[in-house]
C-alpha cells in the first residue's frame, strides 16, 4: 500500500498552497502566519491539540471563514479573489467531511446523497442519479442502508455517509475534519482504511484535521504539527515523532508510543 500511495503523489503539482495565513477572533489570535503546501495525490494530516486552530484552518480552506491576512490557493485559484460563483465552482471540486457528519436530518440516506447532485447538475435522469448514489454508497459500504434515515445509523456509518456525500461530486481535494473523533478503535480503523481507499480510488489530495495519531500515521504521507497557531514541524510521521521540539514531544508522549 505504501508503494501505491507514493506513486499517486505528483511532487510537481501543488494543489493547496497556504501562505502567511492569519486569523483572529476578537483579541484571540488563532492562526499566526501559517504556511503549507499539499501536492497532488498526497494525504496530509494537521495534528494539534484541541483549540490549536485546526478546524479554523480547514474552514478557511473551504471558504466558510475568511482569513484576516494571507493567501490560500486551491487548484490554482486564489480563494480571496474568487467571486461567489467561482467559489461555488471550486467547491464542487472539493469535498468536506464534517466532524459531526452534518447529515440532513429531514432527508433519507438516498436524498442526502442525491441532494447536492441534483442541486448542482440540472437535467440528470432518475437513472443517472440512482447510479451515482449507488456508486458512492457502494464505495463506503453502505449500499444496504439506502432507504434508511440518518438517525437510524451508527456513528461510524454516519461518518461514512458524510464521506459518501462528498464523493458523489467526484472531488479532487478532500478535507476531513476529525474523521475518527468519538468512534471506537475498530470503527476508527475502518474509517482510516476508507480514507486511504478514497485517496486511491478517486485520486484525491487530502488534508486531514485530527488529534488521533493512529489516523495520521495510517492515512497520511506527511504530518504538520500545529501548535499555538503556527506549524512547528512538517514532515513524515517519523520525522515529526523524532523531533527535539519540546512541545511536539510533549504532545506525542501523552498520546502515542510507536
Amino acid at each position, binding site marked *: 500500500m505504501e508503494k501505491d500511495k507514493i506513486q499517486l503523489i505528483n511532487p510537481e503539482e501543488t494543489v493547496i498552497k497556504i501562505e502567511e495565513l492569519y486569523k483572529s477572533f476578537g483579541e484571540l489570535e488563532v492562526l499566526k502566519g501559517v504556511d503549507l503546501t499539499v501536492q497532488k495525490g498526497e494525504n496530509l494530516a494537521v495534528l494539534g491539540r484541541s483549540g490549536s486552530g485546526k478546524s479554523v484552518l480547514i474552514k478557511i480552506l473551504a471558504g*466558510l471563514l475568511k482569513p484576516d491576512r494571507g493567501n490560500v490557493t486551491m487548484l490554482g485559484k486564489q480563494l480571496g479573489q474568487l467571486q461567489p460563483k467561482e467559489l461555488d465552482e471550486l467547491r464542487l471540486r472539493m469535498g468536506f467531511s464534517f*466532524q459531526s457528519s*452534518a447529515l*440532513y436530518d429531514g432527508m433519507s440516506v438516498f436524498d442526502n446523497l442525491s441532494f447536492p447532485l441534483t442541486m448542482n447538475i440540472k437535467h440528470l435522469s432518475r437513472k443517472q442519479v440512482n447510479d451515482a448514489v449507488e456508486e458512492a454508497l457502494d464505495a463506503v459500504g453502505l449500499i444496504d442502508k439506502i432507504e434508511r434515515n440518518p438517525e437510524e445509523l451508527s456513528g461510524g456509518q454516519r461518518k461514512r455517509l458524510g464521506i459518501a456525500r462528498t464523493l458523489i461530486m467526484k472531488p479532487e481535494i478532500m478535507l476531513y475534519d476529525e474523521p475518527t473523533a468519538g468512534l471506537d478503535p475498530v470503527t476508527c480503523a475502518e474509517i482510516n482504511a476508507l480514507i486511504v481507499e478514497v485517496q486511491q480510488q478517486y485520486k484525491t489530495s487530502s488534508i486531514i484535521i485530527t488529534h488521533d495519531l493512529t489516523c495520521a500515521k495510517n492515512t497520511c504521507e506527511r504530518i504538520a504539527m500545529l501548535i499555538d497557531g503556527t506549524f512547528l514541524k512538517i514532515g513524515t510521521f517519523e520525522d515529526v515523532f523524532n523531533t527535539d521540539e519540546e512541545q511536539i514531544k510533549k504532545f506525542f508522549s501523552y498520546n502515542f508510543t510507536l
Partner: protein
Amino acid sequence: MNTVGTKKYLFSKEIDSYFEGVYNGYRFTIRFFKEAFTSPFHFREIINQCFEIGLKSLSLITLTGFIVGVVFTKQSRPSLESFGAVSWLPSLMGIAIMRALGPLVTSLICAGKVGSSISAELGSMKVTEQIDAMEVSAINPFKYLVVTRVMATTISIPILSFYCSFIGLIGSYYNVSNEEATSLQVFYHNAFTNISFLDIFSSVTKALVYGFTIGIVSSYKGFFATHGTRGVGKATNQAVILSIFLIFLEEVIIVQIVNWIRYF
C-alpha cells in the same frame, strides 16, 4: 467609549448589541430581496413549505377562528341589544373579522406555530453544521432555506387569514342562529354589506406583511443561532416574541394608513 474586560463598547454591551441586531436584521432583509429575485428559483421547495405551513396550522386556525367568531358575537350581543341594534350583529362581525380579527388571529397563531418551527429547524441545522454542509456543497443555504420559507409564509398566511375569517363568520352564524332564526345566506349577505374593497385590500396587505414578518424574523433568528441546543431554544423564543411584537406594531401603522386613506 465604555470598556468591559478587554472589549470596547460605544455605549454599553446591551445597547451596542441591540443596534448591531437591528443592523444585521436590516442586512438580512435586504439580502432576502436580492436573493429572491435572482435565479436559481426553488419553486418546488416553496410549494413544499406552503403545504407544510398550511397543513400544520389548518386545524388550529379552524378551531381558533370558530371560537373567536362565537365568543366575539356572544360578547357583542348585549351591547347591541341595549341599543336595539341586534340586526347589525352580522354586519359588525363581518367588519371586525375581515378588517382585524382574521389577519391578526391567523398571524398570531402562525407566529407561535410556524415561526417557532422555522426558527428551531434552521437553528438546529446551524448548530449541527448542516447549513455549512450546504455551503461547501455549492448550494446557497440562504436561497434554499430562507428565501423559500419567507416566500411560503408570505403566500400562505393571507390564504389562511381568509380561511380564518370565513370560519370565524361561520362561528358567528352558529351563535346568531341559536338566538334567532336567520339563514346562512341572509347572515353572509348582511355580513358583507358594509365591507368595502379597501377592507379586503387592507386585510390582504396586513396578512402579507405579517406573513413576511414571521418568515423573515424566524429565519433570521434560526439562521444565526449559536451556542448549541440552548442557543436554538433562545432563538426560537426570541423569534416568537419579536414576531408578535412587530405584528402589533405593523397593525397600528397599517390601521392608521388605511384610516387616513378611508377618510381622505
